[in-house]
């Protein structure tokens, strides 16, 4: 399973892609690709996002579902989805709408 991650051009914030909502700030809202075809659709959305200057560095990342929530396989991507582990007062984890991605 994969989702599409990127950084927003204007402020660098980590975002993920959703066909319905566009580039979203919460990983929980990211669209999950279950097969090759869906991955290709996401990759194309990444290229479009780049072209439209909304985001930079789009990248498909591996995830798993844990207790119904999206959980990136790599620690790097889990930290990106929450914020610095040593500063819980900063980044996405500090926002009221944050739900821990397992």
């Amino acid at each position: 399973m994969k989702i599409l991650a990127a950084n927003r051009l204007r402020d660098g914030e980590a975002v993920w892609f959703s066909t319905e909502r566009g580039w979203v700030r919460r990983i929980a809202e990211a669209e999950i690709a279950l097969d090759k075809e869906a991955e290709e659709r996401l990759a194309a959305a990444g290229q479009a996002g780049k072209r439209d200057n909304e985001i930079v560095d789009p990248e498909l990342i591996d995830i798993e579902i844990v207790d119904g929530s999206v959980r990136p396989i790599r620690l790097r991507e889990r930290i990106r989805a929450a914020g610095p582990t040593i500063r819980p007062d900063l980044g996405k984890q500090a926002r009221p709408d944050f739900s821990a991605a397992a």
Partner: protein
Amino acid sequence: MYRYDEFDREFVTSRVAQFGDQVERRLAGEITEEQFKPLRLMNGVYLQLHAYMLRVAIPYGTLSSRQLRMLAHIARTYDRGYGHFTTRQNMQFHWPALADIPAALADLASVEMHSIQTSGNCIRNVSADHFAGAAADEVADPRPYAEILRQWSSVHPEFIFLPRKFKIALTGAERDRAAIKTYDIGLHLKKDAEGRLGFAVWVGGGQGRTPLLAKKIRDFLPEQHLLSYITAIMRVYNLYGRRDNKWKARIKILVHETGAEEFARQVEAEWEKLKDSELKLADADIRAIEAYFAPPLLVDRPEGDEAVRLARLDSKSFSDWLDRNVFTHRHPDYASVTVSLKAIGETPGDISDSQMEAVADLAEKYGFDEARVSHEQNLVLPHVARADLKAVYDELVEIGLATANIGLITDIIACPGLDYCSLANARSIPVAQEISRRFASPERQADIGELKIKMSGCINACGHHHVGHIGILGVEKKGAELYQVTLGGSGDENASLGDIVGRGFGPDEIVDAVETIVDTYLAIRADKSETFLQAYRRIGPAPFREALYGREAKAA
């Protein structure tokens, strides 16, 4: 301190305007990321995990109070209320929005600061001994030469697209506090038998994936030849340095593969053509730059000795701080104070906006308006009257910056690691914090004595782990963090690279492993005066391996 002349001011201001225009065009979609990335990097703007990062140059680590206040202003206005001092004496802000960076750079320019050449394959910010111009053991202040190098290397057309980044460090004392042997070029300012100033020139040091210590290619280069000789080195590197492989592109690889002797011969041959050119520095020009670094007028304050003696009797914590954080000044009534940014359990090198302002106030009130950044991620007040030490200490206590741990096990160097950095493979800060908490007891730290732990979250070695007495390198193995330990490294005048001790440790094992290493040292040291590094150099890794891996080590 150096003050910008008209040319400097015009150059930095026009660069801010130029970059502002580039950012505007990028946000408007007129230029692509591929076009923009090299431009932003040349202005110190990186993209990391959570946001952009702005790296601000602090030439040779020297700051005035107003510059330190401006860094506080940047932290508060454009960032999240703090900044991070790096091992290159720079400051990094981890949260600025791209759209705000031109305004931040304009604010920085108003106090003669910038981010130019804090990234990219060019000559980076030149670093120097943090006690320069103050230390009792110094031959001369190396900063005027660092400033000459800064002016010469800024947008130098020949050296702006080198095979790879290029870093120069200077020291003016036998004791190397600037880690010059880990630099592309390390310059040791000294005097010859006739009392003339010049440099021992070291080339080809570096950490990263292939750690190598610099080789001395010239024992004495007269000061007027600084630029002609460095140009000769750069030309040889620019010509023969590899551009086909990023991992072999640093000058250290060229020096290593060519051999120091042959490399030196090539440099000398090139220098023959340059030494009498316009690159030869006129004495008047050197002295003019030197004048900017004239030491403050230090009036005698002989009452300091008695004041310090009495205050010591009154407060053990002040006494401990004096023993750890105060360094001998060339004027007997003065001292250099290190402000530890390593409070127990805190992030090494991080400082809040209000702490920056408070240190700026202290520098203004007691320190001739000057502060320094050390490569060990602390701040320094270089010129404080001994009579004022207690007042400075009391004010540092108020702002939580009076930790008495310089050179001790909790004075850890750590890179930002995977908590921020997109290059990192593992976290550094939480490990540093846990080690700091484990060894929090001042008595225990004092008993252990001098022990430098340095850690990096990836092979690039921003945290100098190769030259840590105990070095820790974070890697990613099968999706999890793993920490490799090296022992016996040192970044001073007797530099050495650490030896890998054995297999790595998981995040829940690494602090115990450090404790095992420390306990082993305490058990094997000849007496309390033998430091960790001395004991390691005397005995070698065997007892540490045995303690860490037990039977596993014997079997191997």
